[in-house]
């Protein structure tokens, strides 16, 4: 299991940290594109979608959510969770949808390029 941990980000070089942070942002945007959900839900959904390969620590998740909100890419409203508690539900804004589209395309290009290199015999 890979931990997207903020301590890891702190201790690594800035370029690596940027890459990891960008990846986490992309994962959060993608998760919220499917439906609005609270932070705990985002964390579970990433874990489920990655089939337990990726696990987002709270120390990385919440700063990332607040950062994306600051950038106007996601918005929130308070609602009631499935177990009846008050919860903060995040959803993607139009700017967030555009950013997700751009970042997905960029990620596709990058991963395809890396894959092509790795498959070269």
């Amino acid at each position: 299991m890979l931990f997207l941990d903020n301590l890891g980000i702190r201790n690594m070089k800035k370029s690596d940290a940027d890459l990891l942070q960008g990846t986490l942002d992309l994962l959060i945007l993608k998760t919220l594109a499917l439906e609005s959900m609270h932070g705990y839900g985002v964390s579970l959904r990433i874990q489920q979608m990655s089939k337990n390969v990726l696990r987002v620590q709270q120390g990385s998740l919440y700063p990332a959510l607040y950062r994306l909100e600051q950038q106007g890419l996601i918005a929130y409203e308070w609602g009631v969770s499935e177990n009846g508690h008050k919860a903060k539900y995040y959803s993607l804004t139009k700017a967030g949808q555009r950013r997700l589209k751009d970042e997905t395309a960029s990620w596709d290009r990058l991963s395809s390029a890396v894959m092509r290199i790795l498959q070269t015999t």
Partner: protein
Amino acid sequence: MLWRTLINLRFRELFRRKRFEKEMDDELRFHLESMIKSNIQAGMTPKEAQRAARLAFGGVDQIKDDCRDTRWMHWLDEFWQDLRYALRMLSRNPLSALITVVLIAATIGLLCAAYAVLDAVVLRTLPVPHPEQLVVINPTAQIDSSIYDVLQRERQNISQIFGLKSLRLFGSAAGITRSFSIYGIKGDYFGAVGAVPQLGRFLAADEHDAVAIISDRLWRNEFAGAPDILGRNMKLGLSEVTIVGVAHRDFIAVEEPYLEWDAIVPSDIFCRALGIKRMPLQIVARLKVGKKAEEYEAQLNSLWPALLQATVPPNMTLKQWGEGIGPRAQVVSISHGINYVLTMQPSIPLAIYMIFGLSILIFLSGCLALVLLAIARSIKYQSQTAIMLAIGGGRWRVQRPFVLEILILSGMGCAIGLAMAWWWSGLGNSFLPDSQSQFINWHVRIDGQVIKLALLMTMFFVGIVSWVTLIFGFGSISSRILQSGNSASRPNVRLRTGMLTLQVAISVLLIQCALSFISTYSRLLHIPLGFDSENLHI
């Protein structure tokens, strides 16, 4: 629109800080409770579930701090924390703060006052278009108007020429009789200096009527700024003149910029007011574009002997005439105001430069004293700084309160220093007798340039002290400082004591110098003249 969303967000942040904190609490609590519930569903006891969730969740305060750091206004919160910390440090060391403020204020005040005098007397150019083109002919001589008549025809090197003469005359205006500072002019004075009137008109080049232009000061003081001033009469010596214009407040006499004038009249009226036939003049010319004072001087010297010969009065010999006016022509630039007068008195600019140099030395001494103070303080706080760094504080974050502290002290010192400079800059006129001081204005002022200099010095203080703090407060930070305790810090205590002693010694010396300076001023002001100067006029 993204920008509208962002502006709304920033605006809400400013006023909903408590709500932000509460929402963050609620959100993190919800997350933790959801994890506990999930653990219980997985078969753990409530106690185990809670423990496991807390372990997995990590430090809540750290997460909160990271979330706060993402906010646009987190710097405001940090600034407020730093400010409170800096103020706490200041309140713990009031004596050190007082010495620092006094040092900064004294050095800034002294250097700014010295610069203001240097600027007024030596550096500042006349407030007229292209002041570098203005020259005066034989500045120490009073030239007869007959010579002016010849010179104003010789226009190879000059575009405009005028003559003027100042004198104090008794007269009356608005029912008040007193001594007035009057200028008599010949030629296109106002055109040559590019001035426009505040009210009415200026005098024409060939004006012969009994009219006068009055200064803004006279208009406001004697006529209470009356809007119907034009057409009113005033008496000057033997003449009665009609006021036809009011000059702007910043209009100064180019040849004597330190003189507070009251009225300007045509030369004919000036002579009539004095009861004389011919008026000796100070002649000022404006050089043509590209022409130099030396070229004009060479031209005048080529015709000077013939000029003297042609204008010598019947009751004088050529030698006497030449001695009075000058055996040869001398053309001097007046672009820098009274600086040309000082070329005749080189000891005055020398004294001003020396005072300025002395002020720079005192400024450097002040810097040295501040540096020593900063070193002593850095050493004192070394252990505290080491602890802050050890628990994860960034260097800049730890140093910020120190920078803010010196910024506050320097800001206070700068404000007090500027007030001192303003007070000192007015001392120049204190040396003049009362009868003179109303006519003399050296225009020494605390203007934008002086304020810029003060701010520059302030930033220099902040920069140098911050640098010293960084070097001495952070440079030698190591685990040794945290581990060694008193035994390792003993040499630093000795060094700190030595630094403080040296710093106090320099401060005492500087304050003693400043007090001696002020007491010398004070003694000069009260030197008995040996006669009663009351109501005495020259």
